[in-house]
């Protein structure tokens, strides 16, 4: 296996976001786990180096409870605050600033939601918030839809990564529109990280085979019957999809071709 390990360690193969390099192309959310032990086990099994967290009020009635920071070794994982739950650019900017103050990092996973039932992004609000935050020096990773035009605008604004969805957050419907994702990747130079919708390992694998730079997921692991095992599956599926993309697949053919030689058959 060293052969291959060597290869995927080549610098040009590392995922680079905002000038920082990562071995893993998997980013995990930390929501919805039944307990912190399972969460940490899953993070470990996934090999992820970046985990997202949300910014919320301290619960003053249970202030003694351990916060999530007790469980997340910041040497091991880069904490990426998100603006989940924000429905306006103004709110998202407010949460981003709080996240920066809390996390000693200027990275932000920017979400501006347009609809409660689908959690689909409001691309207008997203562009507005991204513009402000980039100007304030944030490294913006922008959760967006499959629209190329929006992705181009986000790149022009100077986001650090474009994060189109595979399907709605928490739906597990997988990659609904591979064509659009491939299209975005072909036109965008900053990293393209597919965010939301992956439901199972093959979804992650086929998504990486589109050539994108990484995947962010949460529910697919947290809601699997066995989250730690699913995390191990996702690690392999993401690596498999990436290696497969780099290796270059065989052509599809509508006729068969034997794998064993035709000559040398007996009479």
């Amino acid at each position, binding site marked *: 296996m060293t052969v291959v390990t060597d290869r995927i360690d080549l610098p040009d193969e590392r995922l680079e976001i905002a000038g920082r390099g990562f071995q893993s192309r998997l980013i995990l*959310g*930390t*929501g*919805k*786990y039944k307990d912190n032990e399972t*969460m940490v086990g899953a993070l470990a099994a996934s090999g992820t180096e970046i985990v*997202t*967290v*949300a*910014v*919320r*009020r*301290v619960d*003053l009635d249970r*202030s*003694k409870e351990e*916060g*999530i*920071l007790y469980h997340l070794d910041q040497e091991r994982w880069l*904490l990426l*605050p*998100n603006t*989940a739950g924000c429905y306006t650019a103004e709110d998202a900017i*407010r949460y981003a*600033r*709080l*996240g920066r*103050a*809390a*996390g000693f990092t200027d990275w932000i996973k920017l979400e501006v939601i347009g609809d409660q039932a689908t959690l689909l992004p409001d691309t207008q609000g997203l562009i507005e918030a991204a513009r402000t935050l980039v100007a304030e020096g944030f490294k913006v990773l922008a959760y967006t839809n499959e629209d190329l035009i929006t992705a181009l605008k986000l790149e022009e604004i100077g986001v650090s990564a474009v994060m189109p969805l595979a399907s709605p*957050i928490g739906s597990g419907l997988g990659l609904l529109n591979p064509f659009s994702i491939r299209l975005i990747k072909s036109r965008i130079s900053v990293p393209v990280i597919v965010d939301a919708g992956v439901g199972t390992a093959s979804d992650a694998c086929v998504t990486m085979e589109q050539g994108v730079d990484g995947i*962010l*997921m*949460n*529910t697919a692991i*947290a809601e699997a019957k066995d989250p730690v095992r699913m995390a191990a599956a996702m690690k392999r599926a993401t690596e498999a999809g990436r290696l497969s993309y780099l290796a270059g697949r065989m052509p599809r053919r509508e006729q068969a071709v034997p794998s064993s030689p035709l000559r040398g058959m007996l009479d």
Partner: protein
Amino acid sequence: MPMRTPKAVKITLNGEEREIPAGLTIRDLLAHLDLHERLVVVERNKEIVRRNRYAEVPVDAGDTLELVHFVGGG
């Protein structure tokens, strides 16, 4: 903790009206609430208060304070 003054003041803390001892600083308040400074961010009247100023910034009557931290999220 020892009261510095008999008076108490009303503030809005994480969305709820609260009465707290008058004359507290942010640091005093966090201690009063038993919160670790490192793990909490304080927004005072929509302005974030830098950690290194917790000892100076007072909590005045009528202040709106938000104390936030990181929780699990995707």
